[in-house]
């Protein structure tokens, strides 16, 4: 039994309601690269399991209204852009899942928007799942995706050592997309992020499902300490700079805070576009 399988089993046991779906039931949905890894049996199980726990799914229009892309929005150039970004990341990591920190250069650059939509883009792919972790304690936004903002999040997890990770992972109404909110975490964030618990959380999240890509919705890079800690926890970093908002100096100092090895690149956000014109 593989490590993943064990983990799945454990998770299922923890929840007590886990139904392992036979691999055949979801046979055709495996991504090609999973076959290469020889783990095709487990993944459909997990994805199917997740599928069964999505809650109320949001329609394309509802998502659009919330500023989240959907594969049906074929006219939307942003959809294509996020897809391309997804492909780039997948290629970069050779198909392995990864922890990606998405951080704005400064406040209001739309880092959360990018993290959210990048997650959504990953969730387009039925062979991948996405988990969005709200690490932007100063200006949390992920809870808005949830039907109930008071659902437990990071705060509860940190304050409650016995709490299981699965209790804080919530569906957001998008297939294969989960989110962890801050849970009203308001204290000095660095203390939490530095803690072993955070590292353990990230590791466990990463290890739990191999097809799961984890996106940390990070704080602005002007908050250098947090950005640096989170970048150390993550595999890749995407720096978000918004059109007409950030200066070159801000970008420069933001880039200095993180390791060049982890930097995937800069996402230039919110470029003006005239709708109805492609």
């Amino acid at each position, binding site marked *: 039994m593989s490590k993943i399988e064990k983990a799945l089993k454990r998770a299922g046991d923890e929840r007590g309601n886990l139904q392992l779906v036979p691999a055949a039931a979801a046979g055709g949905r495996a991504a090609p690269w999973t076959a290469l890894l020889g783990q095709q049996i487990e993944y459909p199980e997990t994805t199917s399991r997740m599928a069964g726990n999505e809650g109320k799914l949001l329609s394309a229009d509802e998502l659009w209204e919330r500023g989240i892309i959907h594969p049906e929005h074929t006219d939307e150039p942003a959809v294509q852009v996020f897809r391309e970004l997804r492909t780039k990341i997948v290629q970069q990591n050779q198909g392995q899942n990864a922890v990606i920190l998405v951080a704005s250069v400064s406040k209001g650059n739309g880092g959360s928007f990018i993290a959210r939509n990048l997650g959504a883009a990953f969730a387009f792919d039925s062979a991948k799942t996405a988990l969005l972790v709200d690490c932007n304690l100063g200006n949390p936004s992920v809870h808005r995706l949830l039907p109930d903002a008071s659902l437990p999040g990071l705060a509860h997890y940190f304050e409650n050592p016995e709490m299981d990770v699965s209790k804080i992972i919530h569906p957001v109404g998008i297939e294969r997309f989960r989110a962890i909110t801050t849970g009203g975490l308001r204290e000095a964030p660095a203390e939490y992020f530095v803690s072993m618990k955070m590292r353990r959380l990230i590791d466990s999240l990463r290890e739990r499902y191999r097809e799961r890509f984890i996106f940390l919705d990070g704080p602005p890079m002007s908050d250098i300490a947090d950005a640096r800690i989170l970048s150390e926890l993550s595999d890749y970093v995407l720096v978000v700079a918004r*059109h007409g*908002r950030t*200066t070159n100096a801000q970008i420069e100092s933001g880039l200095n805070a993180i390791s060049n090895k982890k930097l995937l690149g800069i996402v*230039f956000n*919110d470029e003006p576009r*005239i709708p109805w014109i492609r």
Partner: protein
Amino acid sequence: MQIYPEQIAHALINESFHSRRLFVGMFVIVNVAMLAAGLLWPKSYVASTSIIVDDKSIIEPLMKGAAVPTEMADRNRNAREVILGGRVMNQIFERGGWLTDRATALEREALIEQIKARTTITPVGKDVIKIDYRDSDQERTLLVTKAFAELYIQEMVAEKESETRSAFDFIDKQAQEYQQKLIATEEELRQLRSSNLDARPGSDIELSARLIALNTRIENTTLELREAEMKRASLERQVNGEAEVTVLATREGQFRARIADLQAKLDTLRLTFYDTHPDVVQLKNQIQDLRAEASAQRERREKAKPSERMEPDETVVNNPVYQQLRRELSQNQLSIDALKARIAEAQRLLQEEVNRGKSLHSGDARLVELTRDDQINREIYQDLLRRRERARVSVSMDSDRQGSNFKILEPARSSPSPNAPRFWQFVLGGVVLGVLIPLGLLFARLQFDPRVRLANAISERHKVPVAAIVPHLWSPGELTGLRKELTILALIVTATLTLSATLSVGRLVGVL
């Protein structure tokens, strides 16, 4: 940073859309500003006139040398000073209808300054002056321009006349002054001459001629006198010599004759008698005595020579040569006396002449001075008289307007339509600028705003790849809002354009 034109265009379009409210706002502001400018822009009419100043009139060659047409030096500068000068300006002020009772001196000054600023004086070539005047009232523009031309000509003619007149007056005054001087000099000269009759032109020459003649006569007479005196001396010598010779020759001869006679007798006696014969002895004694007598006589003559005075005795007087000499001598003495008298007379005359010359010279310096003054004054006076006549002709030339001619070459003419940008130009300019100014500002913002607006600027600057350029995601709600916004903006633009169009039509029809 390398930015390609199509990138700029693309970026500008996107930026314009992004800042659409600013864009439309500026469009409206620029349009309204231009409309306001168009409405408030003062209507400006321009009238121009040109004046030809013709110095080379027909009269000039005719009057050459006789009269001098007034020179108008540096006419162009002059024209400006005359036209914009106080006198003309005051009249312009009156004619233009600006003169109102309530205008204070300060307002009046300001208004005059404005009129001056609206007036342009351009020299065209050498003889033509062009006056341009700009004003908001068409009629007034024409009126003022006409007035400018008329007043300029009037001023110039008056100036010329007064110039010529003052020149004539000056020359006239000078002529009179010289006349007075001349009269005074002549009077003095006359008095000097009457007090000193000899003092007349050339008397000194005459005097010197006379002096020379007298001197010559004295010299000649002196020479003659000396000659006569020499002759007398010679005659006297001759007379004395002759007398002596005659006297001595006579006595010695007598002695020698008697001695010879006695010798002859002695010789004869000796033939017969001895020397001891008494007769012979007697004879010998006689001869001896005679010889002694004769030698005494000779000695006497020798002695008598230096004294040269000798009482002529009868024999001498009876000598014809002597007598002849005495006659000549006495004649000579006469002529010497006559010569002496002549020299004395000549010297007296000379002295007289010298004295006269002295008195003549003392008056002569003044005379010469007076004569010279008189001559110069006379010349100048005559010259002045000639000049005065010329000036008189010049004055009459000016009064008949025959000198330099001021003519209006081109009568004042006003442009039929205001010489300002047309209203439609403002409208069109507003539309064009309303687009160009925001575009320019956006471009400037793109170039100079430190905030990043172009993705490739980031990758070039920081040497970091741009992972993605995420265009704005228009949510349905945003799109609805955008539609509304765009509708409103379109309405605003349409309203602006309609306003422009309405005002243009109104302006065309003449309502505004």
